[in-house]
């Protein structure tokens, strides 16, 4: 292993590293064993606490919750892609009347916490249903992020393509629709899939407004059985599996569509959910 931090180790260093490996390995295993034993002592492995996750009715409820969560995330991302395209192209427009409002909308929804937005949509003058307040909130936030991704994608199209199109006598709109956007979409698809992961994690905020979804189902289970820890573990496992599948799909799309070029997702959203970059840094 070659790294910038240290030289390739010699025999004595390797022996020392082997010792550290054994010591830390033993330490970690001991810590894990102690934790499991601690949980066992507290009776956290009792069958009654895990029972709902092997009972068909509850498994079905969780499955329904997962489907709701996925449906909300997919719906939000579909709307967000459309909004993102419009805002992203708007930000690139030559007309100030288009550029400035697009910029304002994007910056605003990127800087406001999603939960604040959802609460406003649910309990504010609009009084949307719990389901739609989550979907619309996700749509506005992800639309703002995808606008930046669209902008980056369009700007990533080689300059020569645009110049060639103008040289052929195409109009501005034609260049955007026929030359820039189709090539941008190809680069953007991995970023859009990554944004699905963020949206999927953020649907958990439906918990606060009692929107259908995994976390709300989870709450009703732990209220009934008093098994908060077990429910939280099962929910985390479900989220982690879904997100790892999406990550694999995004990586496959990246290899397939973009190749060795850098993905454009990183400067825009660290993937933390309801996050965003430093406005003005892009």
């Amino acid at each position, binding site marked *: 292993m070659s790294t910038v931090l240290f030289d390739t180790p010699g025999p004595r260093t390797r022996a020392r590293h082997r010792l550290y490996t054994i010591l830390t390995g033993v330490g970690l295993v001991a810590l894990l064993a102690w934790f499991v034993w601690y949980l066992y002592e507290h009776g956290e492995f009792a069958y009654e606490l895990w029972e709902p996750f092997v009972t068909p009715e509850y498994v079905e409820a969780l499955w329904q919750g997962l489907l709701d969560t996925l449906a909300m995330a997919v719906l939000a991302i579909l709307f967000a892609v459309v909004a993102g395209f419009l805002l992203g192209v708007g930000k690139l427009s030559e007309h100030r009347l288009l550029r400035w409002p697009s910029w304002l909308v994007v910056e605003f929804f990127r800087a406001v916490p999603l939960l604040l937005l959802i609460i406003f949509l649910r309990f504010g003058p609009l009084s949307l249903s719990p389901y739609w307040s989550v979907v619309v909130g996700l749509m506005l936030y992800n639309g703002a992020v995808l606008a930046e991704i669209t902008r980056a994608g369009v700007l990533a199209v080689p300059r020569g393509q645009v110049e060639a199109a103008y040289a052929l006598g195409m109009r501005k709109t034609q260049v955007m629709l026929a030359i820039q956007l189709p090539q941008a979409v190809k680069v953007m698809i991995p970023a859009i899939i990554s944004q699905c992961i963020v949206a999927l994690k953020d649907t958990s905020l439906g918990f606060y407004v009692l929107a259908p979804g995994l976390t709300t189902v989870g709450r009703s289970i732990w209220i009934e059985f008093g098994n908060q*820890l077990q429910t*939280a573990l099962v929910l985390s496992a479900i989220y*982690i599996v879904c997100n790892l599948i999406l990550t694999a799909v995004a990586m496959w799309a990246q290899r397939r569509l973009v190749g060795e070029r850098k993905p454009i997702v990183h400067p825009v*959203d*660290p993937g*933390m959910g309801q996050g965003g970059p430093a406005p003005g*840094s892009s």
Partner: protein
Amino acid sequence: MDDLLDQRDLVLQAFWLTIQLAVLSGVCSLAFGTVLAAMRVGPISVLRGAATTYVTLVRNTPLLLMFVFVFVAAPNIGWFVGTPFLLKGVIAVSVYTSAFICEAVRSGVNAVPLGQAEAARAIGLTFGQTMTSIVLPQAFRAVVPPVASVLIAMTKNTSIAAVFGLMELTGRMRYFTNNSADDTAIFLTFAVLYIVLVELISAGAIGLERRWRAAR
């Protein structure tokens, strides 16, 4: 809007609580995230594996579930029973954010070209000199923008503490909303307070970047 002006103490308290949450979580996540990053780039395979597992698991779990673990599940096994809410919020946010800080720092270290360290060793610099005058200054510079993004996202993520009863900005906005036309003004006020925080971090990052770029 009159409500807000009459009870501006409550708004300012909420703002202060959000700032406390953000600063404390920021410090904790930076410390823990840097340790994780050191484990991930270090030579000891067990620690590398442990840090990678931690990052993979935490990054793919929603922050809301971190709060569920700390606020709802942990008291069941006798942990964090009498802990103040602020501290519990800081723990939940830091556990989550440190995984992202780790990735940002690691990408910064990996951004330093291998040839830089090799050249430093070739001209006879010791390990300490290589680190302090060649590798780390370049790594810090590469780390600033992604870490700033993570800290901004973290500041917004502190809003989830409202779900578990902390009266920070988001919780306070819920308290003021009452299905009236005023709600839009209230929402915009609280949104602006968040935007102020975000802009402060952003300005700090831009300042640091500019300063270090000049030093190059």
